[in-house]
């Protein structure tokens, strides 16, 4: 087929050498996304065919430190040997060449006489090996295997980086959960205590609200929840704050029913409301109003949390969004980062504020995003 169509490929596609480079780069680019998932039997199985294309040898194996993850090529009866051969590199730490003395073979027709083994190194630690089986290992092949192993290692390090970024995000969500401020707990319990004698029934209801609120915040929840769940938790929070502030805290809630099933990152609104209550009330005399709006906008849901409090220096907000933790705004940067991770950079927080002008935080959430569901 390829030969029959050769007349379709004029010379401007490049010289032989250039085309070889293109083919190599193409194989490499096919392998990279697979390896970015880390070194598992699944990713190794999908990547190994392209690795054999790169090396041009009869058989290739990928192992971790103890087991064979994938094998591609002829003479599959040597697949079990790969795990044992991996042990050699763990000791030496560099590329080695071994022959039939290390992988015995009774099959006379077997063409695998030598093997080049190169370690896969992630952060100075050997995590596996790349093994190229051949009839006779040339110096060129040894060099090629070493380079390919180094390239694979680079991709595995990127995978490690992805994984640690995800772990960091998870840790931040855990931190947010634990971040229910001690003040809030102390103040809530104080407010409840004040009702115990005068209005025991109300005190009981508030305690139940408190229990439900903490259960939601500490629950082992997936990464996403529905807007309805998130608003329910905010309701409880505000009931508790109202018990403390009484009529000083005014709340307006305007929610389009259509957007209640939208998936949002867990605890992404709670910190914004907490900020609004604090900024709208705590440092200011008289009443404060918190307005929460969730509106339906075709494919998106538009949520805004607004207070009429003392406002904030825009520069400080910018630093908070950039991740400066010295700024006193609970989790603003965290919420922003998680929204961007979930929905892309178009969906970061928008904060409108100025000293003395109140604060309005706007969150846009798409109704559907690939990979985001409750």
């Amino acid at each position, binding site marked *: 087929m390829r030969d029959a169509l050769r007349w379709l490929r004029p010379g401007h596609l490049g010289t032989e050498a250039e085309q070889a480079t293109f083919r190599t780069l193409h194989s490499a680019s096919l392998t990279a996304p697979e390896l970015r998932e880390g070194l598992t039997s699944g990713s190794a199985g999908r990547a190994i065919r392209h690795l054999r294309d790169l090396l041009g040898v009869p058989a290739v194996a990928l192992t971790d430190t103890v087991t064979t993850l994938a094998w591609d090529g002829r003479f599959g009866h040597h697949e079990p040997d790969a795990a044992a051969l991996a042990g050699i590199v763990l000791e030496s730490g560099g590329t080695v060449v071994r022959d039939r003395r290390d992988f015995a073979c009774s099959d006379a027709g077997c063409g695998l006489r030598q093997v080049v083994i190169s370690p896969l190194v992630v952060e100075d630690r050997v995590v596996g090996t790349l093994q190229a089986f051949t009839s006779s290992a040339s110096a060129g092949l040894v060099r090629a295997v070493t380079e390919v192993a180094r390239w694979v290692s680079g991709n595995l390090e990127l995978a490690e980086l992805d994984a640690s970024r995800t772990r960091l995000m998870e840790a931040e969500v855990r931190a947010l959960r634990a971040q229910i401020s001690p003040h809030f707990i102390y103040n809530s319990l104080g407010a409840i205590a004040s009702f115990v004698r005068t209005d025991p029934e109300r005190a009981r209801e508030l305690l139940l609200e408190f229990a439900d609120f903490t259960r939601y915040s500490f629950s082992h929840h*997936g*990464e*996403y929840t*529905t807007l*309805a*769940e998130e*608003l*329910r938790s905010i*309701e409880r929070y*505000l*009931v508790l704050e109202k018990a403390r502030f009484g009529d000083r805290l*005014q*709340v*307006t*809630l*305007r*929610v*389009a*029913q*259509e957007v*209640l*099933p939208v*998936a949002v990152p867990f605890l992404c609104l709670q910190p914004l409301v907490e900020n609004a209550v604090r900024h709208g009330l705590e440092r200011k005399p008289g009443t404060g109003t918190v307005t929460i709006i969730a*509106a*339906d*906008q*075709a*494919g998106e849901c538009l949520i805004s949390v607004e207070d009429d409090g003392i406002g904030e220096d825009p520069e400080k907000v910018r630093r908070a969004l950039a991740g400066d933790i010295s700024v006193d705004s609970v989790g603003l940067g965290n919420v922003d980062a998680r929204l961007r991770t979930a929905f892309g950079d*178009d969906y970061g927080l928008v904060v409108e504020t100025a000293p003395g002008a109140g604060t309005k935080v706007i969150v846009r959430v798409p*109704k*559907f995003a*690939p*990979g*985001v*569901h*409750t």
Partner: protein
Amino acid sequence: MSAAGYSVVAVTAVVVATLAVGAYGWRFSRTTSDFFVASRTVRPGLNASAIGGEYLSAASFLGVAGLVLAFGTEMLWYPVGWTAGYLVLLVLVAAPLRRSGAYTLPDFAESRLESRAVRRLSALLVVAIGWLYLMPQFQGAGLALAATTGTGPWLGGVLVATVVLVNVLFGGMRSITFVQAFQYWLKLTALLFPLLFMVTIWLGDGGVSPASTGTTPGDSWESPLAGTGDQQLYTTYSIILATFLGTMGLPHVVVRFYTNPDGAAARRTTLFVLALLGLFYLLPPVYGGLGRLYAPDLIASGDTESVVLELPSRMLAGTLGELLSALTTAGAFAAFLSTSSGLTVAVAGVISQDGLGRRLGGVRAFQAGAVVAVLVPLGLALLTEGVGVAQAVGLAFAFAASTFCPLLVLGIWWRRLTDAGAIAGMLVGGGCAGAAVIATLLGMAPTGWPGALLAQPAAWTVPLAFLTMVGVSLATSRRVPRHTARTMVRLHAPEAVQLDRGILPR
């Protein structure tokens, strides 16, 4: 005041009410500082009324009665099919579609097949179906206004298009559940109330059967499939297939399912929709039957689709008849406006998200999308004439059944579907059905069998699309999406079941 005067007042009232609701629409989203209302999701009953309000279009309101008047009981397959489509939706699609988390059909295609190419093709098809469905709404509006006030045939369409566009551009990017639900009950009232008077008169006249007054002797009004032409059986089956399977591919219907909190609620909603539509579709055929007795001249003049609008004033003398005619006219305009708004929002959403979003962004993209979504079908409506409202909507159903029905049914129930298979199936189904639609709309269709095959393509294009999708999927079995098993679990496991639904990598 004359009959035309009442109609003008009624249409103006509907238009003003629609614009006012658009401008102050946010008041209808629950506004309260009493918190516990906030977490209440839309109830299935309300959601079903909203679906009914958006779904019952010009074809249902005017077209069915006209078809029954002209062609007899055989045409009852249209209302039956438009209702039964929800039965298929209920059994095969409703709950898994909701559980997929998809808001639009392209969303479903992308999340199920993990392919941007399938998404883009789906988006194109959604726009095509939306246009095809919007066009007869505008034509119907022109017809209705011409019949009641004697204006030119284009004015009604331009009026509806303008109102919808103004509403979407300045009112915001939403279609409010409460308002659409109200539209259903308005349409039902607008047909039911005059009918009570008219049936009373008919009974007073002795309750003569419509079938007994054939304008031509020996015609086949009451007996299906007795007419001339041997393609009749094929045509009937094709209508059945298109209407049963097309409903699930309508963009404005699918969008409404997102509002349900979970799969079970989606099923309950669909059940309510079946009941509401079943109730509504009892009425138009009665208009058709009575029209045969009291307005037989419409058959001769070819204006059968205006029977709903004219019948009340013909059967009831004086002001009462004129008022009731004005009521049905108002109901018809409510039908045009609600269906057009729902479709425009759905189509504009897809255009802005998959076409213009990157360049314009946000609200601007949506508004540009809305302009495109309305102007193209309006132009088509003004250019093409002579295709009945019900038939044009029928073609939209055939097109939807040939493209999205295979995608949804196989996507939900067959784990070996591949992106290549889906694309091939939708291209073949959409290509064949699309060619048939264009030939019919331009009036190029030949007579006899080829004409029947083109006028009602569903009976051959739907199986063809299914076969292509299955065949190409089997041939490209290496391309089965990586996370198919996980997606399937998520689509089919009830939400109450505790299990790891997994977070798909981006």
